[in-house]
């Protein structure tokens, strides 16, 4: 029988072999080759799992209809009338008491969050829980954006892991919000901007260059049934933003200009008069007022920007604050502007 000291010596002796040991390089290569079929099968299973869950959800949402004859039609009719009266009363009360808000503002529930991690799009609940990956392509996925009804998701897909956004080509992709049915709506766009959903969710707008074709601003059906159509050809155009009614788009152009154009390319006009190094920032060039009559935007130099409001009546823009970001408040009247070091304490309400 060993005493405690001898046991400790034996244990110490044994621990001397617990040191790092690198596997052979050839073993790693062979091992990867053997493991890759397992990885691919797992990927197929995961995709199948997502599709299965989607079909199950669809089945729950639309249960099979069966005709069930009512034992007595009169009580059923009375019940229906009472129910209809209750619904009409409720609607009348709600509509009468609720404040009418212009699009795109209005009641909304907490939905899901879309975000990018390690080059892939993930969805999570509104508290950040239950994250799940919904893109599985190679390369890098960026800037997921939900359609306004939340049923679909558009994003940029770059083929390479490392991305130079302005120089690389990318695809604009639209898929169902659960990650199924991805459709490439625009192929190989050089300098592809963020993708902007029209308010009705039927059209995607973006900027970039496609195969040397004339045009810098494009719209394309969100279901990918037709190729992109150019609506704007001013050089250096970028980041279109839909008007609330979906009839017009604001779009930036070099150097430091803000333009507004009809969705079909009609009536393009420059609405900013000043000379700026830059207008807006990538992905947030401007924001339309809820009534669609004016636009708030930031402009200046990269180091010093100001907030401007411009109407569509041809009048020059008005500088309303120094700051780097600005947003319309829901009623469309006052506006909050933030300084570059934006924090709640520095925000202040401004009258438009």
């Amino acid at each position, binding site marked *: 029988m060993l005493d405690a000291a001898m046991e400790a010596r034996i244990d110490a002796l*044994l621990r001397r*072999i617990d040191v790092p040991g690198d596997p052979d390089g050839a073993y790693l290569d062979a091992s990867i080759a053997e493991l890759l079929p397992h990885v691919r099968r*797992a990927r197929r299973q995961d995709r199948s799992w997502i599709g299965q869950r989607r079909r199950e959800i669809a089945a729950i949402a639309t249960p099979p209809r069966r005709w069930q004859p009512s034992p007595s039609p009169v009580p059923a009719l009375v019940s229906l009338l009472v129910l209809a009266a209750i619904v009409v009363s409720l609607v009348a009360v709600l509509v009468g008491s609720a404040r009418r808000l212009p699009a795109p503002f209005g009641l909304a529930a907490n939905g899901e969050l879309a975000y990018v991690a390690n080059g892939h799009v993930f969805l999570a609940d509104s508290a950040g829980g239950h994250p799940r990956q919904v893109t599985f392509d190679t390369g890098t996925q960026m800037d997921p954006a939900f359609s306004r009804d939340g049923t679909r998701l558009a994003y940029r897909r770059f083929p390479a892991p490392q991305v130079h956004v302005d120089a690389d080509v990318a695809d604009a992709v639209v898929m169902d919000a659960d990650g199924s049915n991805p459709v490439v709506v625009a192929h190989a766009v050089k300098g592809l901007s963020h993708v902007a959903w029209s308010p009705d969710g039927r059209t995607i707008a973006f900027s970039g260059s496609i195969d040397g074709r004339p045009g810098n601003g494009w719209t394309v059906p969100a279901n990918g049934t037709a190729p992109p159509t150019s609506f704007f050809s001013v050089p250096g155009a970028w980041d279109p933003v839909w008007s609330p009614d979906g009839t017009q788009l604001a779009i930036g152009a070099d150097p430091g200009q803000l333009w507004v154009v009809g969705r079909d390319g009609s009536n393009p006009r420059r609405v900013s008069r000043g000379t700026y190094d830059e207008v807006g920032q990538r992905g947030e060039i401007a924001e339309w007022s809820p009534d669609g009559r004016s636009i708030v935007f930031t402009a200046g130099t990269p180091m010093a920007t100001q907030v401007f409001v411009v109407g569509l009546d041809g009048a020059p823009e008005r500088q309303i604050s120094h700051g780097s970001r600005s947003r319309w408040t829901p009623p469309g009247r006052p506006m909050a502007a933030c300084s570059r070091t934006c924090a709640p304490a520095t925000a202040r309400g401004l009258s438009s």
Partner: protein
Amino acid sequence: MTARTGWVQGIDELQHALADDDAFRSWYRRTAPRVYAYLLSRCGNDVEVAEELCQQTFIAAINQRSRFDGRSDVVTWLCGIARHKLADHFRALERDERRQMHLVVRQIAVDAEAARVPGLDDRVAIADALRSLPAMHQAVLAFIVLDGLTAAEAGRLMGRSAGATQSLLHRARESLRRAYGEEASDA
């Protein structure tokens, strides 16, 4: 970093690793050496066994990916799987020992010859001594001395009670002392 963020990052890492072939290759080359090293020392520096168990560990990890909840580092999770593979290996070894006891004895003699090479690294002699022990002696030393498990935890892995595992540990230490002492004096 909050705990939740850590969980999400761990899950992200695994999902990203399985998302495409290149990502997997990169992730595997980063994580496999750590799992391999864990196994190698615990199976007496037997490279073939370590490679085989490492491979089995990753296959199991891929197939059981939904069980990873992100509460631990991915490599920690992988080593947990590797530990079970190691336990399976020791159990299989024990079954073989019972069936082919004479062959095992002969193999030990061959290993002892190899250990007598002058100038042999000390750690090699220890590993050889460990490998010459009965499978369950190797297992209990690996799980309790190297992994720091309790007798109850190690016993669950090996299908023994805590008391039996504790007794086994005493015998395993004695076996190792004898095996190493003989080899060390010969070296």
